[in-house]
């Protein structure tokens, strides 16, 4: 047999075999709903406009359900445009501001302001920029092909060793359901209340909240207000340990941020952080997210 053909046949058999027998359980991350690649690619290139646009980082895209908010009329058409590590600044702010429908009866931009979203780290390296910079062919691949290519998705070495040793590579399973309205309903089973602290400590020890970013956000708020767009700002809930860490390392002064944004014309909604339990110190599980969404929708409606 032709050696190239023989090699191709063996390779095809190997790929099919590994694809079918790849370690599946217990999965470290279980994803449902819209395929994640498609979800992020489409979100970053959305052209639609909405009555209420939700903006912010992972605490927003996991923590606010447009479905739960729009159920409480008169929120209207609501969409979650949160991105990982999104910065409340620069191109991302322009993008979310453009998603608010100026023809809406009550055009509203809801911004979840986290300490990290006001740091140079978020400004330099965030999920929105990473997605927006992709080439057209990468985007096409992510939207149209990625869902079909799940079979050949990379396997992390930790998954392999986990499967070989009969134990998952991490203690908990991350469950994520990607909704068409931009929300990612999430859960960590079992919860690890301090899991996110290490990563935040690493990032925030070198990247602090910068006053110029707060001022830039204030400038955008004032501009939006001048265009007739209502801006609602709030601090997404996090655990007490996380809030202490953010105050200590990032130098986050919520009173200053609140005063700056209010002076620029934003409505600042106070959220009781202790009323919503996080599963990792930073993010809300599905039930808490729905509750926060409803509470916020009521506050916006007032």
């Amino acid at each position: 047999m032709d050696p190239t053909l023989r090699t191709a046949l063996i390779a095809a058999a190997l790929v099919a075999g590994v694809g079918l027998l790849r370690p599946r359980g217990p999965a470290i991350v279980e994803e449902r709903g819209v395929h994640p690649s498609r979800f992020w690619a489409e979100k970053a290139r959305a052209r639609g406009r909405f009555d209420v646009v939700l903006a912010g980082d992972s605490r927003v895209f996991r923590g606010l359900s447009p479905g739960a908010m729009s159920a409480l009329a008169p929120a209207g058409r609501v969409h979650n445009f949160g991105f990982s590590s999104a910065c409340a600044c620069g191109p991302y702010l322009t993008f979310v501001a453009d998603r608010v429908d100026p023809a809406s009866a009550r055009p509203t931009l809801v911004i979840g302001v986290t300490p990290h979203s006001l740091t140079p780290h978020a400004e330099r390296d965030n999920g929105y920029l990473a997605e927006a910079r992709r080439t057209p062919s990468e985007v096409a691949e992510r939207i149209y092909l990625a869902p079909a290519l799940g079979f050949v998705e990379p396997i992390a070495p930790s998954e392999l060793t986990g499967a070989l040793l009969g134990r998952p590579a991490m203690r908990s399973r991350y469950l994520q359901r990607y909704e068409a309205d931009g929300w990612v309903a999430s859960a960590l089973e079992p919860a690890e209340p301090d899991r996110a602290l290490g990563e935040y400590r690493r990032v925030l020890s070198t990247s602090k909240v910068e006053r110029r970013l707060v001022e830039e956000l204030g400038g955008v708020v004032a501009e939006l207000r001048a265009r007739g767009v209502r801006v609602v700002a709030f601090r997404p809930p996090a655990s007490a340990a996380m809030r202490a860490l953010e105050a200590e390392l990032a130098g986050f002064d919520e009173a200053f941020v609140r005063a700056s944004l209010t002076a620029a014309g934003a409505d600042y909604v106070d959220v009781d952080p202790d009323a919503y339990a996080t599963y990792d110190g930073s993010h809300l599980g599905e039930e808490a997210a729905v509750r926060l969404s409803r509470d916020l929708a009521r506050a916006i409606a007032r």
Partner: protein
Amino acid sequence: MLFNSLAFFVFAAAFFALWPLAAPRPRPRLALIAAASLVFYGFWDPRYVVLLVGTGICDFTFGLAMERAPRAKTPLLAASLVVNLGTLFAFKYSGFAARVADGGLAALGKPTHLADALPAMLRVLPPGISFYTFQSMSYTIDVHQGRLKPTRSFLHFLAFISMFPQLVAGPIVRARDLLPALLTHRAPDAGVRFGAVSLVAFGFFKKVVVADNLAATVEAVYGAPQGASSFAYWMATVMFAMQIYCDFSGYSDIARGLARLMGYEFPQNFDHPYAARSMRDFWRSWHMSLSSWFRDYVYLPLGGREHPTRNLWITMLLSGLWHGASFTFLAWGAWHALLVTVERAARLPERAARSSVGRVVAAPVVFVAVCVGWVFFRASSLPHALRVLRVMTTSVPVVDLTEVAILRAGWPLFFLAVGVVAEWIARAADARAADARAAGATGAPRSLALRSVGVAVMVAACVFLRGPGNAFIYFQF
């Protein structure tokens, strides 16, 4: 178009479906190579095609003019060099030169904003411009020296400068080798085809499994704003040594394999450089097509061994600058020039070869010296490189538990080991093949079935163990 993209797989499938139909006759063959290559290159930005074709038209015309007006050969060559080096300067070095001028004038109390005044189009480096510019220059220089007869067909010339497998990251193929080869066609037999496919698979394996999986850790350490420990910098630098080798030699292997599938042979670009026992050996086995280009078109015309040290430094500094418009690349070139100068002056390889200890430690010492050079290559600026080197050389590289998390995430040590083992196997296989050739062995090797399995395993590893997709490092040059 990146080799490691889905678009390229579709492109390659279409090209190799058409190739057997077009290859037997010269015009369709050259037309297919040129058209496919322009599609391949234009995929980044169609405007780059204008630049590539424009450079080609100039050098094609200069070549013909040199033949028709032999007395004007030297001015015509000078014009060709001005066009090629001028284009390269405009796109690659004008920003750097403007920033240096701005800095210098500001220090003299006369602030300028030359860098800001540059047109936007000059701020983006067209992929592979350094590679095809050098390839195109080799044509006019060889015609000028009488080593090559100019081609009368622009299609032929365009196929030569744009040939997609090596267009953006080499190997740099000489006009006198590739131009005549393009006029012939020899369909690869089953053995050559399998060798070509093996080379492509190995190239992808090095790139997507080893280099891409190491990249994140290297970035995490070198990009850490607070800096890192001596241990982390040494680890990351060794990983970067493996990353850049697998990235670049992987590209070269893919390029050579694709050319072989078309029936052409590109020069070997790497010959296990980290096994080198001297800096001279290293340069004979690292980016060989560029090293030999600089040797033939810079070092020797400068007088070669008449002024070896001066010529070496000029060549090495130019080689550093070829890699990028930055003081870090200049420092990288200077570091290698210094190493070769010291090695020559102290006759280190000869002395090492005479002692058993020297024979054992030569390769590790050369590797460490090369790694120090990689710090300049990887750092974001010269002060950054010096900071990293200070940490690496002034503190003992003790394992720092706070940084173990970085070295565990993504399993970089595992992929570093994979890279080392793959390189060791490849080196042993090359040595066996060389021995077999020397012994006059013919026919298929006995282990062909085993090789099929090995290649298939590499393909499966590329699919399931691939790292986050990254562009090839050498595209930026």
